[in-house]
């Protein structure tokens, strides 16, 4: 039976981060994962992450995954794929299925980082081919390069539903609508805004009643719900779709922790009770990542590092003093991610009405996915009163831990401040040169460059564009407003990108002067669907 100082179960962001931390401290580490590829859900994330520089903000999820794998390799971590950990037993023993045989291993410390699985909501027709988890759609598209369908209904408006909907559009798949039984959008407003400006409708307080079809989905019926989430007769709407994606939350896959006999508690599912470093009630058995409570990849990676360091301390590789310093710094970093409107302590709250600074939270954003023009002008990022020359307009109106915009501008035009949950503001005397760095750096794609050309009676609007085909210079089309409706004719002035923008194109369009604070997306041609 082969013995390791640390066995990690799950090669996702938490598991790999822990393995790297422990291996760098000197431990012999093996990671076991049942999948053919490492990285867990990380490689399917093609959007830029939020947070700050230390949280790897504005880097796409899959690139963070590639970096993590490289670090694991360099640190000498053994990663065993296609290896199912079938059981966990006393004294740190596990049994693993590799191919057609079973091996036993022993770990001085064991870290369970098995992640979470998608929740389901059953409805008439939910077993038809074409109804799948949002994660399944992501997997088929981003890992295997095949469209999951041609027209999708997304059920669930949390970040997973919003992000996957955008990814579907990027993969050339139509999104007929995003629905949620709740009365407001569950995920970040900026993620919803990206969809709304392309014309994707949101139906809040709606649920799916039926998926139609004999052998596969050919349509769906949705209906409005009452306060008890029961469908209201007579409100049924039919949608022409061939795919239904379900994004209604995640539950921890904590079977191994239960098998080991950990003391469990309830946190969106059964999770082990842990100390501040992730150690369960069983000494030497740790958990990290979603299996300990659903958050996201950024927190999973920090949580993994904390647990890895704790395992290293336990085996004597990290002196107590050094461990406490390291753990303290990591916990502070993790703490930053736990702040803001969407922090764990605010989970499920629908009674928030103002931002930390006292600005009124946009109701249309929460209910329809877009800000009204009047609301935008009221926020510090929209630079009210500053209209001479090119300047950024930042449509970021919720407190989220995120600040790459501040770092992006080398002229100091954008300020978030020491607390990265603060709303970004455009400096009074900002000397914007129109480089577009801020536009490309915003993970929420919420920054635009606006230049009112008073004399010509026109204005240019520069927006982040991440679709194919990229409209060419001179292309004529229409500009869409924040709600996805055509607002005016538009012409492409420029479409440029650079390597470090990692695929984000800066698209500049010319519109009538009075449309500069309305036009937010470009469509070639008439813009009709």
């Amino acid at each position, binding site marked *: 039976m082969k013995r390791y100082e640390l066995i990690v179960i799950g090669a996702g962001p938490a598991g790999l981060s822990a393995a790297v931390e422990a291996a760098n401290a000197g431990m012999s580490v093996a990671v076991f994962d049942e*999948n053919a590829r490492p990285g867990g859900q990380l490689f399917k994330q093609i959007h830029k992450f939020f947070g700050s520089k230390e949280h790897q903000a504005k880097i796409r999820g899959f690139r963070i995954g590639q970096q993590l794998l490289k670090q694991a390799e360099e640190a000498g971590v053994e990663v065993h794929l296609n290896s199912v950990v079938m059981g966990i037993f006393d004294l740190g023993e596990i049994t693993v299925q590799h191919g057609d045989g079973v091996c036993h291993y022993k770990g001085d410390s064991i870290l369970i980082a098995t992640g979470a699985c998608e929740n389901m909501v059953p409805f008439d027709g939910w077993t038809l081919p074409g109804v*799948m988890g949002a994660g*399944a759609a992501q997997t088929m598209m981003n890992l*295997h*390069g095949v469209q999951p369908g*041609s027209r999708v209904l997304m059920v669930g408006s949390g970040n997973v539903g919003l992000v996957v909907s955008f990814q579907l559009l990027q993969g*050339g798949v139509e999104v007929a609508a995003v629905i949620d039984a709740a009365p407001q959008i569950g995920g970040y407003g900026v993620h919803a805004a990206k969809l709304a400006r392309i014309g994707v409708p949101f139906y809040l307080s709606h649920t799916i009643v039926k998926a139609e079809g004999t052998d596969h989905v050919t349509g769906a019926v949705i209906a409005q719900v009452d306060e008890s989430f029961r469908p209201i007769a007579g409100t049924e709407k039919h949608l022409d779709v061939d795919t239904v994606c379900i994004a209604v939350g995640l539950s921890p896959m904590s079977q191994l922790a239960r098998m080991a006999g950990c003391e469990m508690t309830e946190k969106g599912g059964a999770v082990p009770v842990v100390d501040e470093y992730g150690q369960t009630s069983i000494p030497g058995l740790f958990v990290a990542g979603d299996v300990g409570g659903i958050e996201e990849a950024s927190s999973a990676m920090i949580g993994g590092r904390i647990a890895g360091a704790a395992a290293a301390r336990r085996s004597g590789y990290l002196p107590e003093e050094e461990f406490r310093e390291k753990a303290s710094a990591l916990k502070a970093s993790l703490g930053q991610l736990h702040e803001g409107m969407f922090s764990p302590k605010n989970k499920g709250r629908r009674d928030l009405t103002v931002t930390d600074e006292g600005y009124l939270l946009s109701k249309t954003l929460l209910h329809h996915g877009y800000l009204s023009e009047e609301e935008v002008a009221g926020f510090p990022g929209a630079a009210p009163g500053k209209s001479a020359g090119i300047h950024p307009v930042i449509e970021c109106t919720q407190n989220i831990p995120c600040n790459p915009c501040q770092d992006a501008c080398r002229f100091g035009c954008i300020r978030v401040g020491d607390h990265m949950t603060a709303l970004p503001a455009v400096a009074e005397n900002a000397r914007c040169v129109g480089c577009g760095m801020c536009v490309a750096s915003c993970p929420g794609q919420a920054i635009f460059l606006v230049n009112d050309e008073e004399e010509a009676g026109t204005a240019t609007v520069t927006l982040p564009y991440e679709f194919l085909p990229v409209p060419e210079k001179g292309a004529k089309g229409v500009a869409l407003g924040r709600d996805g409706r055509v607002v005016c004719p538009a012409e492409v002035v420029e479409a440029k990108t650079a390597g470090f923008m990692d695929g984000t194109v800066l698209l500049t369009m010319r519109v009538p002067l009075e449309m500069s604070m309305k036009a937010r997306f470009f469509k070639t041609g008439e813009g009709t669907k």
Partner: protein
Amino acid sequence: MMRIQKHPILDRIQKGRQVTFSLDGKPMQGYEGEPIAAALLAAGVRVHRYTTKARQPRGIFCAIGRCTDCVMVVDGKPNVRTCVTPLKEGMRVQTQVGISAKKESDDHETI
């Protein structure tokens, strides 16, 4: 469903060589090493099996090998999870009915 030829963000996904396999006796094309389910989806095939009790159609649901809805009979073996099993040249894939292969002489069943 179409294969994504060019993606705005992702680099071209590395695929193995093109290979031929069969679905219920019919020749099909796919890329060596990709999940059987991916090759089927790209060819527009969505029904993988019919359930034991109610003979209801099932296909891809979780796509990561956990839900077992996508299982088919592969090279004579039933309950093979097609979303995590790599395609090989000459594989015999059959629509599963209950836990056996659909007879090739059967017409396409509808409920």
